[in-house]
């Protein structure tokens, strides 16, 4: 197992390097440039556009040959210098260190809420198949899947922030992270982000539980007189979890750079989603490369964690 983990970590580093290289090259080959934002102003004042582009690119070292830029970037990366963010005017490392927590708390809380309730409702719905509870859970999960995060967030703000005045209409970064006030400020964003996830997990958990409920080992356990609660929680739950874990952990990568972004936009949360999207539009190469690298690393590590969790959930699985 230890050898397997070491081997996988080595693969992770190689793949992360590959992602970094591809991102770096694609960004440089793309049509945009950090100089673009200056052009209209310069042209308006009769300046020389070509000269300005050259000067601005020189300011950020973009006038060097690509291989030299790439080598400089790698060397600096190893030294812990991730470059200077041109769109926010601060070191990339400092920018990420300041903002990761806003995404992390939102995603973690949403993830826990969605996983816990999604799986619990899904299993309960499967056990109570074809009952009113099952139909209600199915209906609500379809509603949850269908509602766009963006719309739901705005509606929650209008109802609970504007009309009822229960919550502030935007997230306040001035609150201490580990405080009840911060938790309260996260209620609407977390609910917004977790709704779709929870609905999806409910459907997966229901389907997977139903598959297992029909298997012979469940019938055998029931025939032996094992209490229904034990059958569900000990035998069915553990087996049903295998595909769900895969889906949930894969989902995590998509949430970081997908769903969470929209929630951050609606509630004014300055997380990595907003930072990275703004950086893309501002041609802020160092931030785009860094965030892509972190994203790739997260997905790879998540995969590794998924594989490790498999061994605990399914004793038949062994890695060598």
């Amino acid at each position, binding site marked *: 197992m230890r050898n397997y983990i070491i081997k996988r970590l080595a693969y992770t580093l190689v793949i992360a390097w590959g992602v970094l290289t591809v991102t770096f090259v694609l960004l440089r080959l793309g049509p945009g440039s950090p100089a673009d934002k200056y052009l209209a102003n310069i042209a308006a004042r009769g300046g020389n*556009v*070509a000269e300005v582009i050259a000067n601005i690119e020189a300011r950020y070292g973009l006038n060097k040959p690509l291989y030299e830029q790439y080598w400089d970037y790698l060397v600096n990366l190893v030294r812990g210098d991730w470059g*200077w963010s041109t*769109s926010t005017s601060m070191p990339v490392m400092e920018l990420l260190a300041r903002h990761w927590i806003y995404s992390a708390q939102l995603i973690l809380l949403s993830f826990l809420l969605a996983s816990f309730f999604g799986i619990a409702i899904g299993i309960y719905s499967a056990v109570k198949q074809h009952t009113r509870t099952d139909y209600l859970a199915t209906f609500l999960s379809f509603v949850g899947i269908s509602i766009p995060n963006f719309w739901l967030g*705005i509606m929650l703000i209008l109802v609970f922030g504007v009309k009822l005045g229960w919550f502030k*209409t935007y997230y306040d970064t001035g609150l201490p992270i580990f405080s009840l006030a911060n938790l309260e400020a996260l209620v609407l964003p977390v609910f917004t982000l977790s709704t779709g996830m929870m609905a999806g997990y409910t459907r997966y958990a229901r389907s997977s539980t139903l598959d297992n409920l029909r298997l012979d080992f469940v019938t055998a356990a029931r025939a032996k007189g094992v209490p229904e609660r034990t059958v569900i929680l000990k035998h069915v739950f553990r087996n049903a979890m295998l595909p769900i874990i895969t889906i949930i952990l894969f989902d995590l990568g998509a949430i970081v750079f997908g769903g969470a972004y929209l929630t951050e*936009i609606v509630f004014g*949360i300055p997380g990595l989603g907003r930072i990275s999207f703004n950086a893309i539009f501002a041609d802020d190469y160092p931030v785009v490369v860094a965030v892509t690298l972190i994203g790739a690393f997260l997905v790879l590590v998540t995969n590794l964690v998924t594989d490790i969790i498999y061994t605990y959930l399914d004793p038949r699985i062994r890695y060598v």
Partner: protein
Amino acid sequence: MKTKLLAILLSVAFVVSGCQAAARQAEGTYTTGTSAGDAETLNWLIAADSASFSYAGQTLDSLASYDNDFKVHVRHAAKPIEVSPDGLVYTITIRDYLKWSDGTSVTAEDYVYTLKNLMFSDWLNYTYQSDWQEEVDGKSVFVEPKVVNATTFTITRKTVEPEFMDNALMGLTPYPKNIAQKYEGNVKAFTEAEEFNKLTYTGNLGPFKFEEWVRNDKFVVSRNPDFYLSREDKGTPFFQKYVIKLFGTPAARMAALEAGDITSSAVDPPQVAKFMKLPELNVYTTPTSGYEFLAFNMRSNGWEGLRQKEVRQAISMAISKETIVKDILLGFGEPAFSFLPKVSPWYTEEGVTKYGVGPLYNKEKSREMLVKAGYGTKKADGSFQVTGKDGKPLKLVLTTNVGNETREKMAALIKQELTDMGIEVDLKLVPFATLLGNYLRNKEPGTDQEPGFNNGPRAVSQESWDLLVLGFSTNPIAPSGQEVFFTTKGGLNAFGYFNEKMDQLFRRVKSKEALDPKARKAMYQEISAIIADEQPVDFLTFPRGIGGISKRVTGIVPGINMGWNFHTWYFQ
């Protein structure tokens, strides 16, 4: 005796001023919401975006500024800037109690250093360098700053530019020489300098001091108790903190305003009626200097008809400006007929043809004009049918930037108006960057020119287009900057409009002759008349600015430069 009397008078004065200050205590946090995007830097000399200047401007005033009536108010300047009779020498005297954060005085040397060693330097590439350049013997040269004494400096030009003070000089703000010298010549070090990126040097130069900037979230400044104007404005500013809060969407921003979570924000036209009913808010609508227009591509990759004045007039005659104002801006705007807004002292209606309103909004007449120009036929029943010269349906490409709801609606309305005329319109909504890069930047085909916004009469854009909806802004007090759009060598003349008479008029506006305001007004009148007749673009509207501000805020003077006296606003 005299001394005693003076002492008594001073005591009374202090008591009175103390009472006034006590009556108006600095308190509360003023939070303004925006969804226009974050600033890029507080190191404003390397900035290219307006948000960066706006953020830094909270901690740094300039030499002078305008109020809503364009009356000049001196700020860092101790008295109005003096101009020599020949219009070539500007003498600036700054207040002698301006201080940097380390307690040292701001001197004329700081200003001259900022100009000569930073703004005019080759290594820093200050974006607005050309504001400080003039053309002498065919070459661009910088104006000449010179220190006279600790608080006075001069700027000498070789050519007269009547609007130089309004366009460049009044907005001048210095960098501290003793700090900037450390980074001189090293652009990377200057860009990353902590003092400039955290505004630690601003001393008593602005109403607020920098406190915090959380990227993509908020910019926070706190009251500057040493603010240089607080002497005459009795303890200003009166807000303990000023926060610019960023929102990802206009909907979230307006929800925050409605809930009272922020103090002020812009309001979209469809929301005005609702916000006007809110008891805690005042809604202000103010004139703006931004105008929306329909550009005609007169370059060789646009429809050749657009190179004829009569065709452009006909198109403008088919588009109702009143419908745009009424249905799209919901009444919050005015039809435009030139780049001059009504609030500009140079505005005139004399000789200005008003296409798109009243009798000059006439589709039948428009069809007739197009047929006369060779684009269509007169039918047996006397009506006109618009076609291409080959008799086939006339097809035009209309584009604008996606995401700007107002422009998208305008483009849709223009498409409808032209469809009614019998013209097929292909509406393309593209990202703003694509609009700039592929539709407006141009180069001569077959050359290795770097694409610019006006690379000469033979240059064309990468994508072909005929009509384009866009917006520009005018400086109402110094509109000569509009030459960049409407003169042959104008840096942003992407549409290919070339008119020798127009070039000549803009040259005259920038000459000694224009030092006489009457003469200058006559020149702008002539420019307005020509531009309204020639229709290089169809000026559509001047939308009004709409803002909601908490009723608790007092001291507001609504107008085009609303906020010029922000440091005297306070919570009631």
